[in-house]
């Protein structure tokens, strides 16, 4: 049987990765901006949280929030400089940012440099992760279903038309970037306190691209998709574990296949909400009754 201990580990990891994925989902899926630097924001969040807890003895939750805030602050500066850039130029700028953050951390011996920072308190528990995830999903859902979220979607769909109907496109790109960096930062903080260890290597470019792939896999413009995508894609390498060195080959094939065969991702921009579930359920009940009536 599948052991709970192992499963718990995967769930926790998926729950932790869900945060940066949600952030990226807002940025890429709802605002149409592509970032290769989110591992960098995770790193900032992780190291800030560690710093707060280890050096300043700040309690766990405030420390994690500080990590998020600090990542958001960085994203604000980066956004000021680069959000005016178009398409690939913005991509490369974020890519450079992510790598630069890693290089910086490699060099800062105070945080352990490339050798990492061991001995962090293991504060992340399954319950915390799940609670934070639920809050994160609800907040994001609320944003998306408000005029602010609609404005972001408008920016994604047609930037010029958005500004013509009075949307400050720069501001909404910025809001989206800052929120997504905050989420990534919190995720980084949780990761650090889950592993008990931080190392710049963890926040590599590969990690950033993985996050993006998860968002796309789940479906651009769908929060449910991001959630399902995270669970599946964090589990996928685990499932493929037995394939040893073939698993990344399979991973690559799956990514291309999804793009070709089902580019709208798992959820195809749709959301699975309680309403939908309820309706589905009612329909079933009705059908059942109708059948029973015969």
């Amino acid at each position, binding site marked *: 049987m599948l052991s709970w201990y192992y499963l718990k580990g995967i769930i926790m990891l998926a729950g932790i990765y869900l945060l940066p994925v949600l952030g990226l989902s807002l940025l890429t899926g709802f605002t149409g901006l592509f970032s290769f630097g989110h591992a960098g924001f995770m790193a900032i969040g992780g190291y800030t949280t560690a710093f707060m807890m280890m050096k300043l003895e700040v309690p766990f939750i405030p420390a994690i929030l500080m990590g998020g805030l600090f990542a958001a602050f960085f994203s604000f500066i980066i956004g000021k400089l680069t959000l005016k850039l178009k398409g690939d130029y913005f991509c490369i700028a974020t890519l450079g940012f992510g790598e630069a953050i890693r290089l910086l951390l490699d060099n800062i011996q105070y945080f352990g440099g490339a050798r990492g920072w061991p001995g962090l308190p293991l504060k992340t528990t399954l319950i915390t992760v799940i609670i934070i995830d639920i809050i994160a999903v609800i907040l994001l859902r609320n*944003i998306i*279903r408000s*005029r602010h*979220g609609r404005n972001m979607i408008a920016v994604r769909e*047609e930037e010029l038309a958005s500004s*013509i*109907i009075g949307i400050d496109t720069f501001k909404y790109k910025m809001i989206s970037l800052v929120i997504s960096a905050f989420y990534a930062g919190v995720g980084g903080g949780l990761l650090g306190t889950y592993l008990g260890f931080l190392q710049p290597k963890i926040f590599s470019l590969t990690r950033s691209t993985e996050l993006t792939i998860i968002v796309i896999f789940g479906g651009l413009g769908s929060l449910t998709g991001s959630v399902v995508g995270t669970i599946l894609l964090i589990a996928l390498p685990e499932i493929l574990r037995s394939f040893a060195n073939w698993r990344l080959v399979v991973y690559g094939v799956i990514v291309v296949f999804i793009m070709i065969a089902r580019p709208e991702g798992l959820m195809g921009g749709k959301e699975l909400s309680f309403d939908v579930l309820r309706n589905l359920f009612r329909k079933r009940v009705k059908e059942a009754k109708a059948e029973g009536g015969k």
Partner: protein
Amino acid sequence: MNILQVNGLTKQFGGLTAVNDVTFDVERGSITGLIGPNGAGKTTIFNLVTGVYKVTGGKIVFDGKEIQNEEAFKIANMGITRTFQNIRLFKRLTVYENVLTACQYNANYSLFEAMVFGLVPKKIKRNSRFYREEKLLKEQAEELMEILGLQDRRNFIANNLPYGFQRRLEIARALALRPKLLLLDEPAAGMNPEETEKLTELIAFIRDKFDLSVLLIEHHMDLVMEICDKIVVLNFGCKLAEGTPKEIQQNPEVQKAYLGGGNNA
């Protein structure tokens, strides 16, 4: 009084002068036509007025304020909005979502309010600004769809709409801002005579209903001549003539430009 005054407006792209020292006014409550052969600089003027392009020289005064250096979204919020020649809808959203998005102009609730009140029991929510304004926005969207006859197709994806309805949807989206000045870029392009006729009525109706002024680019001369109070003619980036439809029809230079330009659209 004039709602819009364009004064010595000039735009250069590299060495090319697309708009050269153009001056004209749009009277409040009027429908003004902007005509001219292809490449005369009509759409460029729209782009300059709405802040899409940066002005090279000259002044644009809207409602007593100079706006030539403002950003596009600010100009929109002041009360100028437009449609596009090559329709720019939020393609993958539904008709309803397109209109609702544009209605955002009429709401003020903050991001924070949205985050807090988005998913709380109705009892608490009911008194929040978020709830009130969202409700209002939805009503406005419904109303706009009703006026433009889009109700039946509210759940269509914008991209799948028939052409004429896409144009209507663009107008609906623009009207959501309660503009004082509406810029229409070839609203009748690709329409048959019957549809054009309907559109002509619609534009006049909108002007009265929403109490706004209209500046429109159009190649359908019937439409222009029928509803415009004033017409401005452009040729090669310069203003050629200005006057009532009758005056323009009789202007020999305009005739020459249209015939000589090899474009009798």
